[in-house]
């Protein structure tokens, strides 16, 4: 939000405190850009130049980072900047009316700022609130379950000068308190299991117990628990930590991946809200195991409302000597800082996340080397998901055997599902690995289900009819937590189109197949929806999709074709129904109207000229 900072020559002087705050360290560029934007409302050219000078970079080099992230603006973005989440779930729940109301009430259209420069209105992808859509961010707070009525009230109050925080948080809770978070966002924990969200966990005792063990013994416990990473790839956590332990390097790093960008997931949001200590303690356990002193929690900017609260948790842990210098009076130092993201799904990829932590564009690195060998600033870096760290805390409390007795032999433990879409109670469900799709649908009160998108756009679309007995586990339906339900009234092709556009929006663009191929696949699904596709287009989709799957540099590009490929496999009829029957000499994909549009315009203009 703007605090009316002078934006001109004085920018140079205003930059100095910011440079000083980060010791002119260019790896903190994203923090500096945030500080400028939070003061000035956007990042003016003068600030870029001054910052570049102070960091010994070219101004364009600063712009490389600035222009990469969706939430950075290099032009004024309104006194209040609004982002409405455009997700498939929101679109099932009144998004269109909310969107229209926003445009009407603010007096501007999406992608621009109103004439009075009060409101900047923008689209954004999933902001981790699929259980309470439609939802939007206004500056640093969020509003959920939007209705046209609610939007009108919010915009009116903003016009009258209320701050977003006054509206979202009427009791004016301190931003560091849980109540502040809960005033904006409901937790929606529907079913708790044995592992997560336990009340009164004795964190100090768990850490004592852990530090009594040798690092190797901790690694062994984690290995014995057979826990696998909860971020999506399912890499065995014990093995990662052993590699981290063995990696040569005087300094090592532990990073918690709280980027949670996969559309439809929000479990990390709820864990960080309700069990932040489990997560932070899990990081400390990892630090002891691999020998790290530095910890980073990479928090997506969409979760800004959690930032002060989490900072406070870290401060409290330091005061209790569970973090910081000489933890629990032992020769063990480990501290955690929060790194804010700035809007980029690809930054969930561990190597892109590291680049982002270093102040750069979120471009996935070329591998090898892997982060566990050379990660943040070249140091061996252990990155795990929020849920993985929280589970580790439970494992250290209750033992590896206990954990591995849950779930199935190859998928131990439980996992949190973020359930959204057509069901009675969207929210968080802790399930044991091994339950069937039907059982989950039953539990969440889903009726008349047609399809479930498992693991978000990067996962697979399964058919409730054909796949109901399949089980959620790493060897069958491996799930990163996102669980979106569509009933028979939904148009799956529109869902696919939305997902494909998501990948085009979010591609980092460094490699050819994903940057260029994604656009072509998106074009294909639009062709299909328009009823202008032929069999050949379906073949192209499979071939081009396989090209992207095979040759892309990171997981974004290799999974981007999956919405098309998996629905084509499970629901071929929805595609066949839309195929065009060739008529006349023109290819169906040829858009005659579009091709002759300019000619029509010209004719009309000429006719007008003549009639004058």
């Amino acid at each position, binding site marked *: 939000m703007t605090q009316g900072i002078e934006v001109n020559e004085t920018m140079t002087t205003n930059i100095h405190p910011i440079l000083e705050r980060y010791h002119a360290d260019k790896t903190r560029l994203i923090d500096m850009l945030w500080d400028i934007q939070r003061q000035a409302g956007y990042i003016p050219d003068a600030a870029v130049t001054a910052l570049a000078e102070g960091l010994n970079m*070219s101004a*364009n080099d600063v712009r490389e980072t600035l222009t990469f992230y969706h939430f950075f603006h290099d032009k004024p973005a309104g006194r209040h900047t609004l982002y409405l989440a455009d997700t498939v779930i929101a679109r099932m729940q009144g998004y269109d009316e909310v969107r229209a109301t926003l445009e009407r009430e603010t007096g501007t259209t999406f992608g621009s700022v109103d004439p009075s420069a009060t409101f900047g209105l923008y689209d954004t992808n999933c902001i981790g609130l699929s259980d309470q859509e439609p939802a939007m961010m206004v500056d640093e707070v969020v509003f959920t379950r939007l209705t046209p009525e609610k939007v009108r009230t919010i915009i009116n109050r903003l016009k009258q000068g209320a701050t977003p925080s006054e509206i979202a948080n009427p009791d004016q809770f301190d931003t560091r308190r849980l109540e502040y978070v809960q005033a904006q966002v409901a937790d929606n924990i529907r079913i708790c299991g044995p592992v997560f969200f336990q009340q009164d966990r004795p964190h100090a005792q768990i850490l004592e117990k852990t530090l009594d063990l040798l690092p190797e013994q901790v690694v062994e416990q984690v290995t014995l628990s057979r826990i696998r990473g909860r971020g999506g790839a399912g890499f065995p956590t014990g093995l990662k930590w052993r590699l981290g332990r063995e990696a040569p390097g005087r300094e090592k790093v532990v990073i918690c991946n709280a980027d949670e960008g996969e559309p439809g997931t929000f479990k990390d949001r709820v864990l960080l809200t309700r069990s932040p200590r489990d997560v932070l303690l899990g990081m400390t356990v990892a630090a002891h195991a691999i020998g790290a002193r530095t910890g980073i929690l990479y928090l997506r900017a969409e979760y800004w409302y959690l930032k002060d609260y989490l900072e406070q948790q870290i401060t409290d842990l330091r005061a209790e000597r569970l973090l910081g210098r000489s933890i629990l009076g032992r020769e063990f130092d480990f501290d955690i800082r929060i790194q804010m993201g700035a809007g980029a799904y690809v930054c969930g990829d561990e190597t892109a996340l590291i680049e982002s932590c270093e102040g750069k564009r979120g471009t996935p690195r070329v591998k090898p080397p892997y982060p566990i060998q050379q990660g943040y600033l070249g140091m061996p870096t252990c990155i795990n998901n929020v849920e993985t760290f929280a589970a580790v805390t439970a494992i250290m409390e209750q033992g590896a055997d206990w954990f591995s007795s849950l779930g199935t032999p190859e998928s131990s433990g439980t996992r949190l599902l973020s359930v959204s879409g057509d069901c009675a109670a969207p929210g968080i469900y802790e399930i044991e690995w091994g339950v069937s799709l039907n059982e989950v649908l039953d539990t969440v009160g889903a009726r008349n289900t047609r399809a479930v998108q498992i693991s978000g756009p990067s996962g697979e679309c399964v058919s409730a009819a054909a796949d109901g007995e399949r089980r959620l586990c790493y060897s069958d339906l491996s799930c990163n937590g996102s669980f979106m339900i569509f009933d028979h009234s939904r148009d799956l092709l529109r869902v696919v189109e939305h997902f494909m556009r998501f990948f085009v929006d979010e591609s980092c*663009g460094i490699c050819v197949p994903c940057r260029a191929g994604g*656009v072509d696949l998106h074009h294909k699904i639009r062709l299909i929806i328009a009823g202008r596709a032929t069999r050949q287009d379906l073949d192209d989709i499979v071939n*081009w999709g396989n090209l992207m799957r095979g*040759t892309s540099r990171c997981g974004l590009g290799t999974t981007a074709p999956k919405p098309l490929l998996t629905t084509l496999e499970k629901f071929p009829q929805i595609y066949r129904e839309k195929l065009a029957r060739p008529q006349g000499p023109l290819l169906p994909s040829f858009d005659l109207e579009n091709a002759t549009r300019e000619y029509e315009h010209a004719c009309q203009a000429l006719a007008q000229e003549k009639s004058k």
Partner: protein
Amino acid sequence: MNIRITLDGKEIETTAGTLLVDVAADNGVYIPTLCYQRGKPCLGTCRACSVRVNGNVMASCTVPVAEGMTVEVDAADLNDMRKALVELLFAEGNHNCPSCEKSGRCELQAVGYEVGMLVSRFPYRFPPRTREHVAKYIWLERDRCIFCQRCVEFVRDHETGRKIFTIDDRGTHASIEIDVALADRMPPEQVREAAELCPVGCIIAKGVGYDKPIGQRKFEVKSIRERTLERSRK
């Protein structure tokens, strides 16, 4: 350490850790590349060097060879993938070779010939891209940029070490940019190097256009394949 790998069915001996793309070239197997240059750090952006390693498709410029690796380069599906990647680049930008200063010494064009491309299977996008000609010695013909990142990573201002070329935005909005002040103090030698470094006709040195007649240019006198495999014949 000496190791053995299988390359297109042939067992060969090589040194562990060498990049697969180089090992192949040294053994007479041409793999096209657009971003990779021997001896320079791998950029991994064009993916045109994709091959199959132990059953998985991988960019051979990113793979250090290891004992027992089985590598396939010449297979129908792989040949087609590499060709498709080159076609994607032609469809994504605006390339009109006959009027291009780089023609005959352009790596994209040369690789296009090697993979047997005739026309792009992907719809041509004809993106509107503006050219940048403010700098004194350099002209940026953005239509032809393939975002290989060579200039971004390997060209620096001699005095300050700052980047001269950068990429703004991303995806379909990406645009190659030049720091004019820094570019204007590039010595002539560095300008020439930058123009040569660019695999396509995007970075163009002003004032020296069409200095060599068509027909006598780099890849016209010796193909990119021959140049890549030169070492293996020595």
